[in-house]
């Protein structure tokens, strides 16, 4: 093992496996890059199987099988089996619109540990509008019923923004009704597609505060019945989020074509060099690839972060956001109140909160090549 850093790099705990970028939904805040990877670029079954084995060997404990819609991969059961064989905890992150009962049973029999199901709204009108798919809500409800009927633990995931922020209580009721053990209320994070749609998604500060209060009240009311995890909104905050709990500290992300990223948005930082599982082992990538070492630890931080007592709590916030909003990926996250750009970000949030409401839906760019 070659550790080229002076500081101690711990093995990763979690891996996000983006099996495909194809998806029947077109959510305008999708975390996939605007330039989606195409089917012919996707890793084959054997390569994913090797990657899962290498991940377990490296120290990964949980694998999140994600996308796009991971169930569009016909080999999904084999991939779950590969996770199980390697001792990995497997979590399926799905839109729940294209998995029928027999397929779900196959996945459960293969040893799938958990299902995370997205809901774009708490009602058919909102879900179908945000996902840009007629009938999506009804299909999701039916899928949730199958999941709990089979006995698999279920988490509902709701990405919230200006078009569904008023539905917090209804999301909570839906989670309870569908027998979910856990509910994630995640404010949209403005990267990729969500950045394109920021003016249509951004809530006002007042709406955010109300949402936070409603989540708190529900948490108290349902203690021991429903675990509610909330991802706090960003731009309106005083302190930055501890993005990924630190760059290259706990988790990694493998794209459909096998690029390994410190986070799903990392490719927005253009000068970084990402390694691919086709060329390197996962261990080598984690410890030695330039992209993972770029912002590890605290040495890269600007002086304000270096002298801040929160430097190993916030880890400087988010690198992608720093680049996007200040033009420099080594800047402190401009959400931080100590940043010289903080006021600018707050102004931008206020402006976008009264922006146009039309979505630019997530889809593959038109091309002469087939997806």
């Amino acid at each position: 093992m070659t550790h080229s850093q002076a500081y101690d790099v711990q093995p990763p705990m979690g891996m996000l496996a983006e099996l495909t970028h194809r998806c029947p939904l077109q959510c305008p805040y999708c975390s996939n890059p605007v330039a989606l990877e195409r089917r012919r670029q996707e890793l084959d079954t054997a390569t994913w199987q090797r990657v899962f084995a290498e991940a377990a060997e490296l120290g990964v404990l949980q694998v999140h099988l994600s996308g796009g819609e991971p169930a569009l991969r016909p080999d999904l059961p084999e991939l779950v089996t590969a996770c199980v064989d390697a001792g990995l905890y497997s979590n399926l992150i799905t839109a729940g619109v294209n998995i029928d009962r027999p397929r779900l049973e196959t996945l459960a029999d293969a040893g799938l540990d958990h299902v995370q199901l997205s809901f774009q709204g708490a009602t058919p009108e909102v879900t179908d509008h945000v996902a840009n798919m007629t009938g999506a809500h009804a299909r999701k409800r039916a899928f949730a019923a199958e999941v709990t009927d089979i006995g698999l633990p279920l988490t509902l995931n709701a990405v919230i923004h200006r078009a569904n922020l008023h539905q917090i209580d209804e999301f909570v009721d839906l989670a309870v009704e569908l027998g979910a053990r856990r509910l994630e209320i995640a404010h949209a994070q403005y990267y990729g597609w969500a950045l394109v749609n920021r003016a249509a998604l951004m809530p006002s500060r007042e709406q955010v505060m109300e949402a936070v209060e409603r989540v708190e009240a529900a948490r108290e009311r349902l203690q021991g019945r429903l675990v509610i995890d909330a991802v706090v909104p960003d731009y309106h905050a005083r302190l930055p989020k501890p993005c990924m709990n630190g760059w290259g500290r706990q988790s990694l992300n493998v794209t459909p074509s096998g690029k390994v990223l410190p986070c799903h948005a990392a490719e927005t930082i253009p000068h970084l060099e990402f390694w691919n599982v086709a060329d390197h082992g996962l261990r080598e990538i984690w410890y030695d690839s330039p992209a993972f070492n770029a912002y590890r630890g605290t040495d890269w931080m600007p002086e304000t972060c270096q002298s801040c007592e929160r430097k190993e709590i916030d880890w400087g916030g988010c690198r992608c956001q720093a680049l996007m909003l200040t033009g420099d990926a080594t800047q402190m996250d401009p959400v931080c109140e100590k940043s010289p750009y903080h006021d600018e970000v707050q102004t931008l949030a206020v402006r976008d909160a009264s922006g146009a409401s039309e979505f630019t839906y997530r889809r593959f760019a038109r091309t002469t090549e087939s997806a």
Partner: protein
Amino acid sequence: MTAIQESDIVRLPRGVRLREDKQRGGWVLLAPERVFQLDGIAQTVVSQVDGECSVGTIIDRLCETYQAPRERIAEDVTAMFAGLVEKRVLEVA
């Protein structure tokens, strides 16, 4: 806070697994999108959970392992289980 009785039988729900973490050392409880790293005592207590024996029996067994008053062990174990039930990584059968 959920109260745990000594007559209760507790179990790990589906989707929650106890396993050794060889790379980092120690044991972990793997749950939906969470990892709980257990210290030595927590691991000893959780590894007693088999979905069959009662909390009282688990306390009795731990009394044999640890030289401490039963009352003290009972208090710690029921508090730990109540915390895990609240996080939905343990359930009363």
